[in-house]
C-alpha cells in the first residue's frame, strides 16, 4: 500500500513537472517556430540558441510588479488564473504515457490512473476550464476583459458539443471510455483509430483548437480587437499562469489526440520491432512524446498561418457545420458498423 502511494505520488510529480516543463519550452518553441516561419531568428540571447529563454521569462514574470486594479474584485481576480492553471494540470491524470515498466517483480504502469470513464473525465475537466477565463475576465472590471470572457465562455461551450459528438463516434467504434483500453486496442493488431475515424479526428482537432483558444479561434484574447482579452489587466505571474495554462492545455490536448486517434504510445509495426521489456516501454514513451511534440508544433504551425474568425462566423462554424458533421459521422459510423456486422 505504501509503495503504491509513493509510486503514484512520484508519477504525479513527474507528470506535473513534465507538464510545466513542456509548457515552458512550448513558449520558447512558439517563439522559435514563429520566427522561423517569418524569416527571423527568434530568442537567441539566453544561452546557446536561447534555450534558457523560458527560465529568463519565468524569472521576469516573478520579478515584475504585481498590479491588481483597485476597482476589481480581488478574490476573484486571483482565483481566475489559479483556476485556469488548476484545470489545465488536472487533465493529465488519465493520459497513458507509456506501457508497464517492470522493476523487480512489480509492474509499474506509466499512467496515473486508468479510470473506466477516462475520456469523460478529460471532457469534464475541459468543460470546467472555462471558469478560469470567465472569472478572471469578469473580475478585471474592464470592458475588453469582459468581452473576452463572454466570447470565451460561449465559444468553449459551443465547441464542447461538437467535440463530445466526435468522441461519441469514436466510443462507438472502440466500445470503451477508458483511455488505457483504447490504446491497448490500437496496439494489438488493429489499425490506429485515425483510419476508422478521419472525419471524427478532423472535428476533434478543430474543437481542440477552439477549446485551447488557439488561432484561428483565439477570439477571447485577440490582441488586435480586445487588446489582451480576458488577461488585459493581468500582470506578473498571474498573467504567466494564464499563458502557462494555455500551453499546458495544448500539451494535454496533443497528448489526448495522440492517444485517441494515433495509437497512443504504440509504435507503428510494433510487432516487428525487436525490442522487449523495459526498452520497448521506453521507446514507446519516447515515441509518444514525439507524437505530442508534433501536434504541439502543428498547433503553432496553424497559428502562424491563418487568420482568425469573427465571433458570429465562429458560432456558425461550430453550430451549423461541425455539429451536423459530427452527427453525420455518428450516423455513418453506426451504419458502417452495422453493415460490417460489428454490432
Amino acid at each position, binding site marked *: 500500500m505504501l509503495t503504491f502511494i509513493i509510486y503514484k505520488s512520484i508519477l504525479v510529480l513527474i507528470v506535473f513537472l513534465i507538464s510545466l516543463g513542456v509548457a515552458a519550452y512550448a513558449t520558447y518553441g512558439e517563439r522559435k517556430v514563429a520566427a522561423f*516561419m517569418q*524569416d*527571423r531568428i527568434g530568442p537567441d540571447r539566453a544561452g546557446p540558441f536561447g534555450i534558457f529563454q523560458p527560465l529568463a521569462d519565468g524569472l521576469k514574470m516573478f520579478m515584475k510588479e504585481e498590479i491588481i486594479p483597485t476597482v476589481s474584485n480581488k478574490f476573484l481576480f486571483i482565483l481566475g488564473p489559479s483556476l485556469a492553471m488548476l484545470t489545465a494540470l488536472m487533465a493529465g491524470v488519465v493520459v497513458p504515457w507509456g506501457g508497464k515498466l517492470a522493476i523487480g517483480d512489480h509492474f509499474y504502469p506509466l499512467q496515473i490512473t486508468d479510470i473506466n470513464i477516462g475520456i469523460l473525465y478529460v471532457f469534464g475537466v475541459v468543460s470546467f476550464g472555462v471558469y478560469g477565463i470567465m472569472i478572471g475576465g469578469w473580475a478585471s472590471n474592464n470592458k475588453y476583459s469582459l468581452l473576452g470572457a463572454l466570447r470565451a465562455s460561449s465559444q468553449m461551450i459551443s465547441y464542447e458539443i461538437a467535440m463530445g459528438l466526435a468522441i461519441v463516434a469514436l466510443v462507438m467504434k472502440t466500445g470503451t471510455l477508458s483511455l488505457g483500453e483504447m490504446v491497448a486496442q490500437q496496439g494489438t493488431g488493429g489499425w490506429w483509430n485515425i483510419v476508422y475515424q478521419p472525419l471524427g479526428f478532423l472535428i476533434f482537432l478543430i474543437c481542440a483548437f477552439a477549446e485551447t483558444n488557439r488561432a484561428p479561434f483565439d477570439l477571447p484574447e485577440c490582441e488586435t480587437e480586445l487588446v489582451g482579452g480576458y488577461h488585459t489587466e493581468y500582470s506578473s505571474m498571474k498573467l504567466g499562469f494564464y499563458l502557462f495554462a494555455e500551453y499546458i492545455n495544448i500539451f494535454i490536448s496533443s497528448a489526448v489526440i495522440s492517444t485517441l486517434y494515433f495509437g497512443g504510445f504504440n509504435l507503428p509495426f510494433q510487432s516487428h520491432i525487436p525490442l522487449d521489456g523495459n526498452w520497448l516501454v521506453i521507446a514507446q514513451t519516447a515515441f509518444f512524446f514525439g507524437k505530442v511534440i508534433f501536434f504541439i508544433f502543428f498547433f503553432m504551425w496553424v497559428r502562424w498561418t491563418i487568420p482568425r474568425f469573427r465571433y458570429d462566423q465562429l458560432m456558425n462554424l461550430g453550430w451549423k457545420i461541425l455539429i451536423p458533421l459530427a452527427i453525420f459521422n455518428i450516423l455513418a459510423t453506426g451504419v458502417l458498423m452495422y453493415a460490417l456486422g460489428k454490432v
Partner: protein
Amino acid sequence: MQLTNRKKVVVKKEMSLAEKLYLPAITNGMVITMKHFFKKGATVRYPEVKREISETYRGQHVLKRDEQGAERCTACGLCAVACPAEAITMEAAERKKGEETLYREEKYAAVYEINMLRCIFCGLCEEACPKEAIFLTDRIVPTDLKRDEFVYGKDKLVEDINHRIDLSGRQTKEVLEFKKDKTKAHNQTWADKQKLLKENKHH
C-alpha cells in the same frame, strides 16, 4: 462610374467549392509557411553584425577638421539658419594668435551645440555648409537616460584627430576633383598659406 478607359475590375468575390471548404486554402498557406521555415532568416544580429549602411546615410553629425587638424567651422551660422528643427546653436569667437593650428579661419565656433532630441536628421545643415565643416555620418546617435546628455557639444561633435572619419563617399566626383587643386583658396590649410606667402616673398 467610368472616367477613363483604363478601368479594370480586380475583385472576384464568389468562392469556388474548394475555397468554400476552408481546408485547401489552409493547407496551401501551411505549405508556404513551411517553405519559409527552412529558408534563411533576414535578421541581422545587430550588435555583433552591422547592416551595411549607405555612404549617404544621414546619421550623427561630425564637425570636420582639415588635413592639419584645424577645425573647419567658421561659425557663419548658415547651418543654424537652415535647420528646420532649430536644433543648432553656436557662439562665434575670434581666433587669437597661436591658435592657427586649431582653427582654420580667423573666426571659429567657441560653442557649437546640436540638440539630438530636436534634430530630425534632414541633412539641410550639411547642404548649407559652405566650408565642408559639418557632415552627417553613417553613425547612429546612441541612446541615453538624461535629456541633458543629448545636447551634443563640441566635445562629441568634432572629430577625433587620431580617428578621422572618411567622408569622401558623401562627396560628388566633381568636389573630390576640385579638392585636389591646391591653388584654390578653399583647399589651402594655414600651413599651405604660410608656405605660399614665403614663396611669394622669395620671388
